């Protein structure tokens, strides 16, 4: 099924490609323009910040200049610690993301689909949803110790809630008319979910994924309070404990960059898989 669809998609793409060479050039130009537009704000921000730091408006013990931060990051890259921090954190977020997504898909589908499951699980899940990440820390240490499992699970918890919420609401919002089509063709509940409900609620699901991933990055800090010796969250907390503003800001910047990159991947997936939507072209 999946293979087939991608086949079809590629057919579509090539047939388009042949016919629209000029369009493609235009697209490339547009892509460039879009990147340039997107860079305006960050560049302005960094420039102003650098200037203000230079004239001493931000004293360096509070907010070091971007160049200083940049040097810090470059320094870490050179002595190799940077890759360790990024690598381990990315691994944890990825693992937690996968775990959390699986849990959310299963529970979300159940709750979205069966009234009994909703009545049973939903109240509890909604209650857990507002417990801050830091609050989980002592409990997770108690239950799972300080190894990787507790860290990954912590991130999975963060990832879980937005995905769950979006799946449930996505399922509830699926047009009855389409579900009836599936029923008419004798689909089992599972098939109904896979062939109608999941694709139909895909937009909502994908937003959930993106939200969840963002929360995954946020939960890293709490996760790495649990006995980490490496990682971006570790870097942040240590920077705070040791009054090293450049470490703090460097870790923030790294969070922003990697978070943005990971989100960009999901956004690509989103654009790809929702091409069938009858959207208004902006």
């Amino acid at each position, binding site marked *: 099924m999946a293979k087939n669809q991608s086949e079809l998609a590629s057919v579509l793409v090539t047939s388009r490609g042949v016919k629209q060479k000029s369009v493609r050039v235009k697209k490339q130009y547009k892509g460039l323009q879009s990147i340039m537009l997107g860079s305006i704000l960050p560049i302005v921000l960094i420039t102003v910040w650098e200037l203000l730091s230079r004239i001493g408006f931000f*004293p360096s013990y509070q907010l070091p200049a971007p160049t200083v931060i940049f040097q810090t990051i470059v320094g870490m890259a050179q002595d190799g610690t940077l890759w360790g921090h990024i690598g381990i954190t990315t691994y944890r977020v990825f693992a937690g993301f996968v775990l959390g997504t699986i849990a959310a898909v299963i529970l979300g589908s159940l709750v979205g689909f069966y009234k009994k499951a909703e009545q049973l699980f939903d109240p509890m899940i909604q209650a857990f949803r507002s417990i801050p990440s830091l609050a989980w820390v*002592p409990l997770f240490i108690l239950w799972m110790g300080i190894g990787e499992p507790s860290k990954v699970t912590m991130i999975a918890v963060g990832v879980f809630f937005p995905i769950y919420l979006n799946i449930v609401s996505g399922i509830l919002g699926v047009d009855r008319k389409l579900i009836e089509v599936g029923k008419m063709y004798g689909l089992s509940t599972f098939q109904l979910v896979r062939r109608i409900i999941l694709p139909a609620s895909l937009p909502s699901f994908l937003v959930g994924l993106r939200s969840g991933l963002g929360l995954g990055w946020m939960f890293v800090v709490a996760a790495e309070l649990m006995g980490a010796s490496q990682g971006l969250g*570790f870097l942040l907390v240590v920077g705070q404990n040791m*009054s090293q503003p450049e470490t703090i800001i460097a870790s923030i910047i790294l969070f922003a960059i990697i978070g943005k990159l990971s989100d960009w991947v999901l956004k690509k997936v989103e654009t790809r898989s929702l091409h069938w939507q009858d959207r208004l072209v902006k």
Partner: protein
Amino acid sequence: SSSASSEEKPEEIRLDYAYYSPTSLVLKNFGWAEELFAEEDIEVTWTLSQGSNKALEFLNSDSVDFGSTAGAAALMSKATGAPIKNVYIYSKPEWTAMVTNPDSGISSLEDLKGKKVAATLGTDPYIFLLRSLAAEGVAADEVEIINLQHADGGSALVSGDVDAWAGLDPHMARLELESGAELFYRNADFNTYGFLNVREEFAENNPEYVNKVIELYEKARTWILENPEEAAALLAEEAGIDVEVAKKQLERNDFSNPVPGETHINAIVEAGKVLQAGEVIKADVDIEETTNALIDPSFAEEVIGE
């Protein structure tokens, strides 16, 4: 230095209080500051510092005028250029020590080799651990240091996730009482003192008021010395901890010498060297110079006399 006092007076004086500074709790509890400054129409606001790093953030962002921290924390901040100075020692606490479970078989730092030790990086217990190891001739990389928040380190010790813990009061006191944890290595001199810091700008503009605050702190310190029982009760009440825990914590505080001096400078310089060796403080920082810039005994000397 206070003779060069300026005419203006501050509109408000922003103090912090912290559960690791019993003196500040007493001062806040009795409202002496409000009493004193009300005469001059100066408002007093209190902010809770949840830890040295918070107090420093507050000081550096001009959110408080006085902040209570551990000495080493103040040094680390000063090393990055923070405009603060230490004007008073609120206590000589022995708030940190090496802790282990009763049946762990660990009785000296030697035994830690190859074991897991929990500590919160960059805080006093961490510095204590490094200094102790250095003093006993154990290399820091022979033990596996696990970075855990203070409370979590305690839990990890009890549940056996780690073999030892560079503990901090009141967690440490509590564990001693409740799960029989043992302090197997103690050294009061490796603790870096409780520093009352002031923002340099405030000290420059309002030296008299620095003196007045020190006077208030002195009043509180004297009260604690005279009423240890009540002080423990007050600490327990304010911090929401057990009276027994509070007593143990207070017992480990030495309130006798409030004036910053040689001993403190030495202790901080020693701590600074350890931190520099551990790359926490940058190599290009001159520790002694920074320490001297940080510690300014003049106010306390003026108020208390030597």
